[in-house]
């Protein structure tokens, strides 16, 4: 949800970093999004196409790297991924678990021309 606000944030971060690097234009935006961060890629792309016009990011491509939710069992140390529903350890059925991946939501890098 809030794809418009999210897209505005991405644009602001990208423009600032592009200007700091003295870019003439931005060609690619690399995003890292964990499975637990609920963002609809298509909606971000839609807003991006609108908002980035007339900016240094005009015409740039968004890349969404999705990271799965990874969990480590605290009892048997099995590491497993959850695609859909939260579940107990597939090896020992323990519910004493820790999340080690899945909540990422950041702009990793931009590709620019100078």
């Amino acid at each position, binding site marked *: *949800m*809030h794809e418009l606000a*999210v897209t505005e*944030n*991405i644009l*602001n*971060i*990208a423009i600032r*970093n*592009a200007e700091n*690097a003295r*870019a*003439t234009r931005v*060609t690619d935006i690399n*995003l890292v999004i964990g499975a*637990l*961060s*609920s963002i609809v890629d298509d909606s971000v792309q839609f807003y991006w196409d609108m908002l980035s016009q007339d900016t240094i990011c005009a015409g740039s491509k968004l890349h969404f790297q999705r990271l799965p939710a990874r*969990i480590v069992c*605290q009892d048997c140390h099995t590491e497993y991924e959850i695609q859909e*529903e*939260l579940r*107990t350890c597939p090896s020992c059925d323990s*519910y*004493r*678990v*820790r*999340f080690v991946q899945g*909540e990422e*939501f*950041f*702009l*990793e*890098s*931009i*590709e*620019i*021309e*100078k």
Partner: protein
Amino acid sequence: MSSEKVTVVEKIMDANDQVALTNRRILDQAGVFSLNIMASPGAGKTSVILQTIKALAPEIRIGVIEGDTAPVTIDADKVIAAGMPALQINTAGSCHLDAVMLSRGLESFPLSDIDLLIVENVGNLICPASFKLGTHANVVIASIPEGDDKPYKYPTIYRGLDVLIMNKIDLLPYIRFNKEYFLKGIEMLNPGLTTFQVSCETGEGIAEWAEWLRARVKEQKAK
């Protein structure tokens, strides 16, 4: 003309988080302990706040900031009727409070007159999870009639919590609610989460919650 990859590694929610940090500093400087109370509509946010006021005031001075999407003052009025200062934020249709809205609210709030600030977020189990406010503790109120599968269906909000209050426990005899299933989900998402089981209707469990708050307010004052 050359191409270059520029490493950024900035969180997309950073702008909000920075304002949240400023809010926290303001609250710390004022010696005020603060809560962000979130829940589905009707779970009991306002009821818990009123019970908290009943249990702790006037020993602890409490202020409340209310967030609602509709231009109502229903909740703020109840708090004022209970004798505490309340500020109503109308989010103008936004489904959650964010750090900027809270910072504006803090500007006009008499922080030097209170020990505890309770922010009642918009009734919503999804969106508030993404917007840190800068309060010291995130609290969700899960009411028994909502069902025992909510941690599984709304994992994000349960992960970001510091306290869980299970409300309406007086209805347990009448509702199919598997406490073990519910608590297992909580344990997977947020191991060791401080949890209170209460009924705002009967008053059961409120004293334990109040005691926890009393201790936090005391710690905050001592800093």
